[in-house]
């Protein structure tokens, strides 16, 4: 048992934390978003240069990491800085699926991803699927030696910024079947692909993607026909680890802002941190942040465990982090008062992201119910 990071990961974390603290600018992000821009290409290049993308992939596809604790270290720091650059959908979801299922030819595209020169997107969830991974109505129909995709995908992370899409579609079975789902690699500019991008309230970007008779070669398929579900669940497990770690970083940032505020802000002549009611609520908040850290550690350490064990930790972490995230968002705003609600103060960004992470990949209730079902199984 060892709760210290390896030397390499500790160095990566320290370096990321330091460089992002020095160079990543909340006000710059705010201006960017006000102009409707989904991310900063220079920041993205910098992140790639720092090894953020490489750390998410194993050596065999050109990275230098890819393990659970690589994801948790990287995303905790991204969360602490509050970046909005396309990493999650690009490298963890789409990139992770290409790394897991891709042919050698397909895997080659990851070099550009790792270099920050190409962006992938994972077009999976459908408009009414909510948090169900198996509700896929998009059809993949064989026509001669071609495959034709038809359907609609919602909330595709950085879908409008991607060069290449990893698209799930059904080759067999009914709407909620796990069997019969396949993945395809589709260029974003392929004929029949219509992408409508927009910003999310937390500053991340997503798109609705309509596929209207998109014609593909069979070589566009990622892995075996109809057998993609397990890989999708695994990729989403890794994405949940990533957003839980990101939330942890955001909690740490929100906590630090609040600690400073409580020390510096004076009311009725004294620092408000002297008020015992706030002190005790701050203590409860700190406890929950430590619990969130433990939940992230647990999930990172079990991300390669057998499916049932892994998924128990997935749902436990997402539930606990969802609760802790809402508590931290709400309490840190409350302790700040009005200033905490202003867009120009960085806390509002962390609060929005913390709350919106609960809407990614299943919220507190979804994962509570899932945890109960996994326990009963």
């Amino acid at each position, binding site marked *: 048992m060892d709760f210290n990071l390896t030397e390499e990961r500790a160095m990566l974390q320290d370096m990321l934390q330091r460089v992002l603290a020095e160079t990543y600018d909340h006000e710059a992000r705010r201006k960017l978003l006000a102009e409707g821009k989904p991310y900063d290409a220079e920041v993205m290049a910098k992140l790639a240069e720092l090894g953020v993308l490489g750390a998410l992939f194993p050596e065999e596809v050109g990275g230098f990491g890819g393990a659970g604790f690589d994801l948790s270290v990287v995303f905790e720091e991204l969360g602490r800085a509050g970046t909005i650059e396309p990493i999650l959908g690009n490298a963890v979801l789409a990139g992770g699926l290409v790394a897991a299922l891709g042919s050698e030819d397909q895997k080659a595209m990851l070099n550009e991803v790792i270099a920050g020169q190409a962006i992938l997107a994972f077009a999976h*969830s459908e*408009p*009414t699927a*909510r*948090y*169900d991974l198996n509700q896929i109505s998009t059809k993949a129909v064989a026509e001669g030696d071609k495959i034709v995709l038809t359907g609609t995908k*919602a*909330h595709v992370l950085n879908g409008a910024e991607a060069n290449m899409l990893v698209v799930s579609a059904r080759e067999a079975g009914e709407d*909620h079947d796990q069997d019969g789902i396949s993945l395809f690699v589709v260029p974003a500019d392929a004929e029949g692909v219509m992408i*409508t991008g*927009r*910003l*999310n*309230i*937390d500053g*991340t970007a*997503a798109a*609705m993607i309509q596929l209207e008779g998109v014609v593909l070669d069979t070589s566009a398929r990622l892995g075996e026909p109809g057998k993609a579900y397990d890989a999708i669940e695994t990729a989403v497990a890794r994405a949940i680890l990533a957003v839980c770690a990101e939330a942890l970083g955001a909690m740490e940032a929100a906590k630090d802002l609040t600690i400073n505020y409580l020390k510096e*802000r004076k*009311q*009725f002549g004294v620092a408000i941190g002297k*008020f015992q*009611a*706030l002190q005790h609520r701050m203590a409860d908040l700190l406890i929950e942040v430590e619990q969130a850290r433990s939940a992230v550690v647990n999930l990172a350490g079990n991300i390669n465990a057998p499916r049932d064990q892994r998924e128990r930790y997935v749902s436990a972490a997402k539930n606990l982090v969802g609760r802790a995230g*809402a508590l931290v968002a*709400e309490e840190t*705003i*409350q302790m700040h*008062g*009005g200033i*905490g*609600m*202003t*867009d*120009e103060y960085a806390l*509002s960004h962390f*609060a*929005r992201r913390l*709350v*919106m992470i*609960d*809407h*990614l990949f299943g*919220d*507190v*209730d*979804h994962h*509570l*119910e899932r945890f109960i079902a996994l326990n009963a199984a």
Partner: protein
Amino acid sequence: MDLSFTPEQEAFRAEVRAFMAANLPKRISEKVRLGKRLSKQDSEDWNAILNDRGWLAANWPKEYGGAEWDAVQRMIFEEEACRANAPRLVPFGLTMLAPVLFAFGTEEQRQRFLPKVLNNEHWWCQGYSEPGAGSDLAAVKTRAVLEGDHYVVNGQKTWTTLGQHANWIFCLVRTNPEAKKQEGISFLLIDMKSPGVTVRPIVLIDGEAEVNEVFFDNVRVPVENLVGEQDKGWTYAKYLLTHERTNIAGVGFSQAALATLKTVAATTMAGGRPLAENPHFAARMAQVEIDLMAMQTTNLRVVSAAAKGQAPGAESSMLKVKGTLLRQELTSLLRRAAGPDAMPFLPEYLEGGDNQLPNGPEHAPSAAPTYFNMRKLSIFGGSNEIQRTIISKSILEL
């Protein structure tokens, strides 16, 4: 002890309900129902409709054009207005300035200002908070120096809600810097078109510029715009904070939000069944409903005691704390009900300019912004921490 309304009260409720059905423009109620943002014009239109009926100023004496309703009538009106998705009335002129003018203003001031509140000529905003003061409202730094028949005002106000629409502001200003904090404050009415007044919007966490900073740079204000006596303004400000707060619990808002939530939960599919049938979500909804059923009676008990002349003390603080927690919980549940569709930020849709819904159900785009916006309920108007201190002090007498 009798929980039923009198026949007169029931008749009044029916009258209000019928009025809403006949007169509230669909264009406006749809915006309210969907949590969209109201324009200045929307508010003014609704004000005019109510004023035509004599119902705009619920708490004013009839001789000034008010409805002169009692507390229960006002509560019934609030409930019915919320149920019909009527816009919340902007309170600054109607229920904040006016009571101060009735209690402490001159008849000349009442005649000069009150009709213009009713006819939309004046849109008032509130100049209490200052940067760095927070809940310590008496920490007023904005200075007003009497020079001849004018006060010259310098300083800054903040958190000025809807100040971007306003043409008048009532302000706390410091007229005697030597006096103790609560003394030496005056209550001044300032025309915002005066030279030296600047308004800067503050974008909030929900992406909307609902509040503002207001700067005063050598603004000249005629002495006849002083309310009451110079240096006694804190008394008038406190009067406002402890009176005229019949709807502090927001029961009507919560009831309307619960009705919306139930509809949304019944029509949103989650895991193969309506969200309303998910036991965890159903439990959260039921818990709010049970609390709200009790809250309605807690509110009525306080209103009914106030109507009998018993001054509400800690009770109104209790209503504020619990009422805001319930309202916030409801916005949280609405946000969660929207699922992934709560994520997109669609300002054009929220502004009502573009009714084309990009994706997801119609209630979803406002769910997250409303949730974030409503964090203010426990901060503004005396934070819940301040309220808890008031409650415990009144009981512990320490």
